């Protein structure tokens, strides 16, 4: 069996989860088995995961699973993996997956991989592809062991509806005591969180002053994009640190990354060079970012950005 740990936000399954179920189903078929979705905590319509290929949902509706306590989740997931004779357990490469992957790998004593972009099955063997050296290398290896575990990138593959709602089995097993007490969860409201955004508009020092940020907001609004920034912008307090992308900030991989007034130092590129398409707007023709870009505009950003926003609005109209 292939088991996928699901995640929800605001009462809906995350896109990362729909992707994981889609990929889990594809791998399960190639292995001649099925994919089971494990749903911890309250859920609105768990049967809908069948549309993405799950053969069955195991729903554990327990209050103590509302927060991701790594010890508790590891015990529960390994219990379910044992019952279902799992050959592969998939978590998403998210804050939840990061809490769990190392523990699960030790528990299963089998192959493991984090940040996986592709799983291949050949002759009954599973091999994975992941990026290493901050996007500057691609790593491949075979996962061996009775039960292996991976964290799958949220955008590893499009989520595909290929099936119909599936049976939901309620599971009530003893859940160990919590090792951590969650006091508070604080979320910035509004935009899609950066790691989940398909489109990201990002700006750097070229913007000159925080009061100029309005043109970035307008462009992001026209695109339905999330906003990011370079390290100097976060360090000087223009923007909050959780918007900083790069080596020491967040690593993201949206479908479209628009870099405005960012030179493209190697530390910044490390956090964004896995983006599918990169647009660079910079007045310096020597900016290293142009080498990593798919499309570039070498001109004053204060002229270009409003024009691009206008062109997008016209195209939408």
């Amino acid at each position: 069996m292939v088991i996928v740990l699901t995640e929800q936000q605001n009462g809906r399954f995350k896109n990362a989860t729909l992707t994981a179920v889609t990929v889990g189903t594809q791998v399960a078929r190639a292995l001649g088995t099925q994919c089971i979705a494990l749903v911890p905590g309250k859920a609105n319509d768990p049967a809908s995961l069948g549309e993405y290929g799950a053969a069955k949902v195991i729903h554990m509706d327990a209050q103590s699973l509302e927060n991701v306590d790594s010890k508790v989740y590891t015990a529960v997931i390994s219990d379910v993996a044992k019952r279902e004779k799992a050959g592969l357990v998939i978590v998403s490469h998210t804050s939840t997956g990061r809490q769990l992957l190392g523990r699960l790998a030790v528990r299963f004593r089998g192959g493991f991989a984090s940040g996986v972009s592709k799983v291949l099955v050949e002759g009954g063997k599973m091999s994975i592809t992941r990026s290493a050296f901050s996007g500057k290398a691609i790593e491949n290896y075979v996962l061996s062991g009775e039960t292996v575990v991976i964290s799958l990138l949220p955008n590893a593959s499009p989520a595909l509806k290929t099936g119909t709602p599936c049976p939901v089995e309620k599971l009530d097993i003893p859940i160990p005591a919590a090792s951590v007490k969650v006091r508070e969860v604080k979320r910035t409201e509004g935009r899609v969180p950066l790691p989940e955004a398909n489109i990201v508009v990002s700006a750097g020092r070229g913007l000159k002053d925080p009061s100029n940020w309005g043109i970035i907001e307008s462009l992001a609004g026209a695109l339905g994009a999330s906003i990011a920034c370079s390290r100097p912008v976060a360090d000087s307090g223009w923007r909050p640190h959780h918007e900083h992308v790069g080596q020491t900030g967040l690593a993201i991989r949206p479908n479209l990354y628009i870099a405005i007034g960012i030179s493209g130092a190697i530390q910044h590129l490390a956090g964004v060079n896995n983006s599918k398409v990169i647009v660079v707007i910079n007045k310096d023709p020597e900016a290293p970012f142009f080498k990593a870009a798919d499309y570039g505009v070498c001109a004053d950003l204060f002229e270009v950005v409003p024009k691009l926003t206008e062109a997008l609005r016209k195209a939408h109209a």
Partner: protein
Amino acid sequence: MKLLVCISKTPETTAKVAFKDNGTMYDTAGVTFMLNPYDEWYALVRALELKEKSGGTVTVINVGTTEDDVMIRKALAIGADDAVRVDAAPRDAYFTASQIAAFARDKNFDLIFTGKETIDYNGSMVGGMIAEMLDLPFISYVSHLEMENGITVVTRDIEGGVEISEVNLPMVCSAAKGLAEQRIPNMRGIMTSKTKPLSIIKRVEVSPMIQDVRYTLPPQKSAVHMLQPDQMDELVRLLREEAKVI
């Protein structure tokens, strides 16, 4: 408090990335190494701050060869009290975590820090593995950690926000940006680092879980398509019809 900080060496950010032996090994020829920034800037410095506030000791541990000693001395120069090097070339995260867990098992550390990941293999695995091996609580990507009346309050980064938790020690956590500020070793630190204890210990026998890794370089990007400022309608068309991303 007894604090343990796991430190690793990584190639400098600007080092070239190439592979040898048929794409099975990172080619270190001409590469300069440094302490992994998450280990040095955040994990180590927060451990030192906790020690300065409430007393105790900060031990650093590294799994590596003699080449790593210069990095270990730097951690001592920044302020760690003593160091341990498990004498072994790291194989995979499981191998490394097993070595650290074997050392820490009977030492009663209150807090074990790792960086959130190493900037070369980007695995983000070792912290959780040590926690499981020692049966301790684990929090990943910690951006704040405070002691409040004997309770440890830990903030971790999650998508679009933070989660704040209370944890009883001992625990393991992986350090992210925000946890502390980088410290540059001063002359006194550098001088005393030479005489601080660095014990070299034998590895425990563990088989790695991952073998036969192959590396390739990502395909070269095709040349950038440059546009003029008055071609924004064209850029929108390209993003929509050629790149298909909007």
